[in-house]
């Protein structure tokens, strides 16, 4: 078992390195967003699919269904909202009807007004505020499976051209993805947990695996701060990789310094 290397006064036991890592992330984001740094972002296959999907709907004169998940204000929800904002902008521009099912859990109640605001703003920014219809953000109860039942019903009745399902969808994601595929819609999804990702990878036309969803936002927008955050994430993956390799080598030589440091 790993034993902490040292104890820092005032800081709770075993939480020092975590705090340092958090602060490091903050500092790195600050560093990369300041000034004008050009950062390369690898192209993620699912990204352009979003624009294509809205374009297809506009051509066919059918609606787009987009959702941001059913969690509270978590990382996934925020990533989903950020994509929703983009989709709403595209829909407003092309005059495509956008349906956003909302609800699904008690903790998502507070997210709902934010989503409304996002869609409304997008329509206003494109100069078509009168096309915004609050009834197209139906609230489908605070129960996960009642939400899904309603969602599936909407898909079957409106037969949308595209479905863009991001954010924190859990086991309900497969109901949506497979129904969407069955009604002939282009299906773009993002998976929030590993059991889901495996299934969604098979069921959808495009999947944003893991953090590809937020990376999608970075790629679509030219916002330097979004690109910066992708760079910071990469740096931390290097740190993780380095720690694992170094730890494996050292611990097999009988030196447990990496584990001990991490548990400090």
């Amino acid at each position: 078992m790993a034993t902490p290397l040292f104890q820092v006064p005032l800081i709770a036991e075993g939480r020092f390195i975590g705090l340092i890592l958090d602060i490091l992330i903050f500092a790195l984001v600050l560093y990369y967003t300041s000034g004008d740094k050009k950062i390369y972002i690898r192209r993620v296959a699912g990204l352009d699919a979003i624009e294509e999907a809205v374009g297809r709907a506009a051509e066919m004169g059918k609606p787009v269904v987009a959702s941001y998940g059913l969690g509270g204000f978590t990382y996934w929800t925020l990533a989903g909202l950020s994509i929703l904002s983009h989709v709403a902008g595209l829909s407003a521009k092309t005059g495509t009807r956008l349906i956003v099912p909302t609800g699904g859990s008690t903790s998502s109640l507070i997210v709902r007004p934010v989503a409304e605001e996002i869609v409304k703003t997008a329509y206003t920014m494109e100069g078509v505020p009168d096309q915004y219809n609050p009834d197209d953000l139906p609230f489908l109860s605070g129960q996960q499976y009642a939400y899904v039942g309603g969602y599936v019903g909407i898909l079957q009745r409106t037969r949308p051209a595209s479905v863009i399902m991001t954010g924190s969808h859990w086991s309900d994601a497969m109901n949506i993805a497979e129904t969407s595929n069955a009604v002939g819609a282009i299906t773009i999804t993002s998976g929030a947990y590993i059991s889901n990702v495996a299934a969604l990878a098979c069921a959808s036309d495009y999947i944003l695996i893991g953090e590809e969803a937020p990376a999608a936002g970075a790629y679509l927008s030219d916002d330097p701060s979004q690109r910066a955050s992708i760079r910071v994430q990469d740096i931390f993956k290097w740190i993780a990789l380095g720690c694992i390799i170094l730890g494996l080598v050292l611990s097999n030589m009988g030196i447990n310094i990496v584990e001990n440091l991490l548990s400090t």
Partner: protein
Amino acid sequence: MAEILKNRQLQIAVMALAFLLVFVPYFIEVPALEAASTKLITITAIVNAVTLVLALQSQIRRGLNIVQRRQTGWYFKAYMIITMVLMVVFAFFGRETGPYHWVMYAIVNPLSSVNYGILAFYMASTAARAFRARNTQAMLLLTTGFIVLLYQAPLTGAYAPWLEPIALYFGDTFGMAAGRMFLISVTVGAIVFGVRVLMGKETSVLGVGKEEV
């Protein structure tokens, strides 16, 4: 007053303050801070519960619109609103027995189970459609998927016990590694995203893109 409340900087400051009040006590042990942070969490939970009123307003308005326009199937929306009210009324007669109990067992439980269990169908049709050896990736997916599925059928276990170590190997190694890798990369992403929101860089989240639209 209005100008102050509309101010975007104020919004970000309030958010950052709330964040720090919850975040910091986890690392720095000061009992008073810890108590304040617990209190703030309770307060937000109550605020969240109150938000239901907004969702209800929207749901009822949408339902009534459909009823008023006499859209096809409007009576379903009327029915929905009635059942909603009924459930609230039932709750007053106690929950262990009586109509509330009946609704839970006759309507809510079966329907929630169906929508959960129906996933078996969706998984099956997805597999039948997508498990095709199109390329190397799909071939690998197909192979491991096939082996593990075969092992999971209880009858196979009785007649082909040699399959067990192979199937377990795939799940306990590659599956486990994928889960771990996934978690690491998602965690970092989440923190970075959080930092961006707190810095006010994530304009979409606070609801208004450009000021006072």
